[in-house]
């Protein structure tokens, strides 16, 4: 076990930010903390890093109690903050060198690790650039390089792709996968469910400071009663048709806006076939047809009654 959080309670005066939150993160996995803004993801991370005081509970990292002065534990942790944490007065190279030198004593080793980190985030052409001259995506990559240059065993990324263009986001996600393949355990917080689905081995969904569900993607999706979502393009549905579709076995809900009908089914087999048969039998013309399996947003919606990005 790399990280064990047990019954963590954190209050900001009357507001309970973390409510008996527990997590267990295994070595070598990419663990996603998914939740809407203000759900307690960053507070959890800051408590794990011993930056924030908490009211109750315990945190163990690498099997030891995490404290502000637990330097032996801190040596193996890398942090990539939500806000870019670099010095505008230092070049790309010097920034990485500085943060690496907080962890490593040997100057030769620091130089080697700095070069490796620059190569890892593909900033070779920008070594002598100052952060102000970098684009948003390059800046995020520099932010990552500063956090991982010392080759930590546990890397915590707190929403590293906020306000990043799709191309840079993909680079960042690829980089995180590579770090994980290199043996690092990753904790990844985000409110983008697509990233979590793409990246994480296990996921904890947080809302109002509580873990409302956790497990693998499949385990989470199996927790809910919702099956696939079928979307059909059609212009000829009547109220009667909609009522009849609702009565097809396993159909949970039907929404029609005059152009497309969205049919949500419960778990079960052949739901798509039943819906298509209905349209064929009634000779109702159809355009494009899509079928989607439940997403983590559906999981979140079913458990909390609200959208992940509300």
């Amino acid at each position: 076990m790399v990280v064990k959080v047990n019954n963590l309670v954190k209050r900001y005066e009357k507001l309970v930010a973390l409510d008996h939150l527990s997590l267990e993160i295994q070595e070598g996995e990419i663990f996603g903390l998914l939740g809407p803004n203000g759900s307690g993801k960053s507070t959890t991370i800051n408590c794990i890093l011993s930056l924030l005081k908490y009211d109750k509970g315990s945190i163990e990292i690498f099997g030891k109690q995490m404290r502000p002065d637990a330097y032996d534990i801190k040596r193996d942790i890398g942090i990539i903050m939500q806000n870019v944490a670099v010095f505008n007065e230092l070049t790309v190279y010097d920034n990485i060198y500085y943060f690496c030198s907080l962890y490593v004593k040997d100057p030769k080793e620091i130089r080697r690790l700095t070069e490796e980190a620059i190569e890892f985030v593909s900033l070779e052409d920008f070594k002598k650039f100052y952060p102000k001259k970098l684009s948003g995506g390059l800046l995020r990559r520099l932010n990552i390089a500063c956090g991982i240059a010392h080759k930590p065993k546990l890397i915590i990324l707190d929403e590293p792709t906020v306000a990043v263009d799709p191309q840079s986001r993909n680079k960042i996600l690829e980089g995180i996968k590579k770090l994980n393949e290199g043996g690092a355990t990753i904790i990844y917080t985000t409110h983008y469910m697509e990233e979590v689905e793409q990246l994480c081995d296990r996921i904890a969904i947080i809302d109002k400071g509580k873990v409302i569900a956790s497990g693998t993607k499949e385990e989470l999706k199996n927790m809910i009663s919702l099956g696939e979502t079928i979307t059909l393009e059609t212009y000829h549905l009547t109220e009667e048709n909609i009522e009849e579709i609702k009565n097809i076995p396993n159909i949970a809900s039907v929404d029609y806006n005059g152009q497309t009908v969205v049919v949500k089914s419960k778990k079960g087999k052949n739901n798509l076939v039943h819906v298509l048969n209905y349209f064929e039998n009634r000779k109702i013309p159809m355009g494009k047809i899509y079928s989607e399996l439940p997403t983590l947003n559906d999981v979140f919606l079913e458990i909390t009654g609200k959208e992940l990005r509300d």
Partner: protein
Amino acid sequence: MMLRLYYMRLKCLFRNKESLFWSALFPIFLSFVFSLVFSNFEKEEQFATINIAIVESQEQSYIIDAAKEAKYGEDTAMFDIQQVNENDAKDLLKKGEITGYIVDGEKPSLYIGGSGIEATILKSFVDNYLQTVKKISIVASTNPEKVQELINGSMKRADYISDTNVSGRAPNFTLIYYYALLALACLYGSNFGITEISDIQADKSAKGARINVAPVHKLKLLICNIFAAITVQVLCVLVAITFMAYVLSIDFGSRVGLVVLTCVLASICGVTFGAMLRSVLKKNEKTVNAISNAAVLILSFLSGLMNPEVKYMVADNIPIFAKINPANLITDSFYYLYYFDSLDRYWFNIVCMVLVTLVFVAITYFATRRRQYASI
């Protein structure tokens, strides 16, 4: 490791253009402005020979001789005299070529064209002459044997109070402005102090959070950072003082070592002042910078930066404040070094400055020593 971190902080601070401007360029610019203003003051302060005319009459008095004899100090003649007729004298006065003219006679009369310091001097001279003549005539009628003695006495001018200065330096009122300006420059080190605390506190910046996660003792980092800030600040002040001494020819006296010591201690005071403000004020960095700069300006104003009278007023009415105002302590230290032979007052001042700095350090330490935060 400490040296490496110190060196990296130096790199950071030397690229912090805003703080460098306040600590080095602003005092240099302001001292240059001061030098331009004061050079005009000094010119105005030197008394020039006054152009006058004397209209002779048949009944001549001794006023022509007295005017010719009148001098500023040892050498400079008080009056440049033209002896003309009355019409010419009027013309000269109209054209502004003379300050006034005296019509000689049993009772000389003075005509002046307006007010001003030269007209006042001329009027005082004539008044003085008439009083002396009157005195002699009274003594001649009551005590004739004393007349010669009185005439001899009235010809002599004696100073009954002599200005002396143990350090041998002439008093120079402009120095207080430059000293207050140097105090301002030293205290602008507060901007570096603010940056250092911002960069090390997890609740002040993302960088601070990242640094707090690193396996380095916070006190070590704080010491590295503050030393780097002091180094840069001292260099800025030394650049400013070198500019004043060698380009503007401002005299800081011969105690160069103690002047540098004062700069170093004053810079430490400035940096720790900023560090203290940043650690106790729950505002963003820009706001704290603005508060700090305003506070430094006010403290400098109270130490005589804009008007030396304010400094003396504070010293008379709130002496305790004068002894805890860092700007005033710095200004006084330079002042004592320049004017006073004995260093007793200087060292007392330095002790006060060190105590004030220790208070800043203690507050900063207690405000930043926590390693966990209630909120970030």
